[in-house]
């Protein structure tokens, strides 16, 4: 690529990362957990 002669040098330090992050999986509904029951106890 023909971009000509250097004119100036800049130091660029972005505050935010310019690379998009991997999308995180979002839970679709309220988390369901079975109530913990001790062995032998009435459920």
């Amino acid at each position, binding site marked *: *690529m023909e971009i000509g002669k250097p004119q100036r040098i*800049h130091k660029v330090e972005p505050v935010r990362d*310019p690379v998009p992050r991997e999308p995180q999986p979002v839970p679709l509904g309220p988390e369901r957990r079975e109530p913990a029951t001790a062995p032998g106890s009435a459920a």
Partner: protein
Amino acid sequence: MTSGAAAPDYAAPFEAWRTWKVVRGREGPVLSSLFFDLVWEPRLAVHATCLRRTWLDRLGVLRREHEAPGRRCECGVYAAGLEQAVSYLWHPRVAPRRAPVHVLGRVLLWGEVVECERGFRAASAYPAELLVPTAVSGRGRLSAIEDVAAGLSRYGIPVRLVECQTREELVRQARGLSRAA
């Protein structure tokens, strides 16, 4: 000019334009430099290293290692204005034989950035938006081009298919799309 230890001049990346060819990667289409064997992986910044090899380098007579972009070298990640980037899609050395799909895109540049008369050489870069023009990908079927465009979504940035026939039309559409972004 700034030295390595100086405070940064800018807190946001520079934006410019460049062109890539699309090649087949392990998990789908990936961007590759037009003139070097350098793949731009999705969601990974490209950090420049000096790939310039003079005949003296090849003979091992003179090899000066330096960080890219070297101030006295020509290395770094290149980017330029829209019209110049578009012109490379019609460059004779970019004949779309091996890679039928070529793309245009806005690119973010950061780290040390050498501003030149008509463009930039940067230490680090990542695309910000990709435009897949049908005009220079005419050897592939439109559906294949659409598949490539869909595959490029792995970069996590907007990817647009631009239906155009001429260079001027592509410039006009790219200008409009980047304004709207």
